[in-house]
């Protein structure tokens, strides 16, 4: 069985690389994008089992990226990462179709549990 693929869209380089290292270590194949625009531009060419999106990014923000990705991959689950703890972010993201919202800084356990829960459901 091939490794599950996780797409990461995060503009902060340090966060992106940490995530990438962590998920690769946990046995996932990782696709990294440094902006919403980059992720959306060629989204017909790649497919992932789950996408981790930063909520607030320059250019296309998380919600817009989700909308575009959903147009091409309607079944791809989306998880948001956000540094704003406002409940509003959680609410608006969930209402618009995200599977989960994780608050930064997240614990590795929380992240991996969320990912595994979603993947086991969609598998």
């Amino acid at each position, binding site marked *: 069985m091939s490794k599950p693929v996780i797409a990461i869209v995060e503009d902060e380089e340090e966060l992106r690389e*940490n995530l990438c290292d962590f998920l690769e270590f946990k046995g996932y194949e990782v696709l990294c994008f440094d902006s919403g625009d980059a992720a959306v531009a060629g989204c017909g060419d790649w497919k992932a089992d789950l996408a981790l999106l930063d909520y607030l990014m320059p250019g296309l923000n998380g919600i817009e990226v989700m909308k575009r990705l959903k147009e091409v991959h309607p079944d791809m689950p989306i998880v948001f990462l956000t*540094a704003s703890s406002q409940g509003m972010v959680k609410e608006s993201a969930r209402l618009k179709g995200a599977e989960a919202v994780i608050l*930064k800084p*997240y614990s590795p356990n929380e992240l991996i549990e969320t990912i595994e829960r979603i993947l086991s459901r969609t598998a």
Partner: protein
Amino acid sequence: MNQEAKRHNQVKRIDRIAIAVLLVFLGVTVVFSFYHSVLCLLIVFGLRFLYSLFYARIPKTYWALSAFGAALAAYSLFYESGVAVTVFAVAALLECLRVFMIALLNYPSTVRNLETLTQELEKRVQDRTTELKAANSELQRANTKLLELDKLKSAFVSQASHDLRTPLTAIKGSLDNLMIGVAGPLNEKQTRILERAQRSVDRLTFLINDILDLNRIESGREKLQKTDVSLTTMVKGLIQEHKPAADQKSIALDAELNGDEVHAWADPHKMERVIGELIGNAIKYTPEQGRVTVRLSLQDGAPCVMVSDTGVGMSEEESKKIWERFYRTANSQHMAKGSGLGLSIAKELVEMHGGSIRATSEAGRGSTFKITLPPSPVKETAI
């Protein structure tokens, strides 16, 4: 001014003539009848005294008293006979006439005075109103400015916290990656060093979260989602949750939940946080082998939660200050680490529910924190 003085002199002159005439008439009466002369004297001077009482203040009284005097005079003329009575009546009549004259002469100036007075009053009222309006708009401006500043402060705090979280996430992520062995296995010393860094990052994370939470409560963005909550179940869960921390210090953590289940109409997450904060604090500030007890009760229908410990306690002054932001008691500074915001948040949350939170303590003998919530509204019975 000149005219005023002239008129004043006129009045004085009339007055003098009137008094002279009166005295002459009085002299005549005394000659004819002692009894009537005394009566006349009494009435005339009584009237004069009354006039003098009301002279400047109530012009209407002139007219009333004068009319009374005239009526008395007329009565005497018609129904009494004799020279003395007639003389007395004429005297009274004259007195009335005198007063009429004075009032008549004074009338235009009185009216004028009144008009000026009214104008002056109106002007004063106007001035005051303008002053008040200015002060009011000043206050309004200040208030608007304060509100704007408060909004700016809230926006700043939430922006700053957001900006702090991003690098914090990167630090934490790097540490976590090292700890789980992304870069290979670690020896004991490396693990210890990293654990230290991780603890500090966790502390910083708690602090930022607390600042953000307090900011949200203070700016009114935090809303309660009230429902029927079983405090009994909640406390049982919290005791379970805090058991490991208590066991670590060999602290006996118990609940006294005697009697029926205690319910409250409250936001379960917020109440859980408040009670959890109190239990956590109690464990923090209680030395090893101590005891922490959570009691639930209903007092006049109001649900109460009490968390008592056998910890270091506080002085009376300290127990008042602990609700202030970032306040740390003398003991807490070296005993336990926290944001210094937990109790401020707890107080705000309890007060949002319309309840109260109090601390009683004795230095060295432990503390008791008591939350009182408003009585639950009568439950609507389903049909």
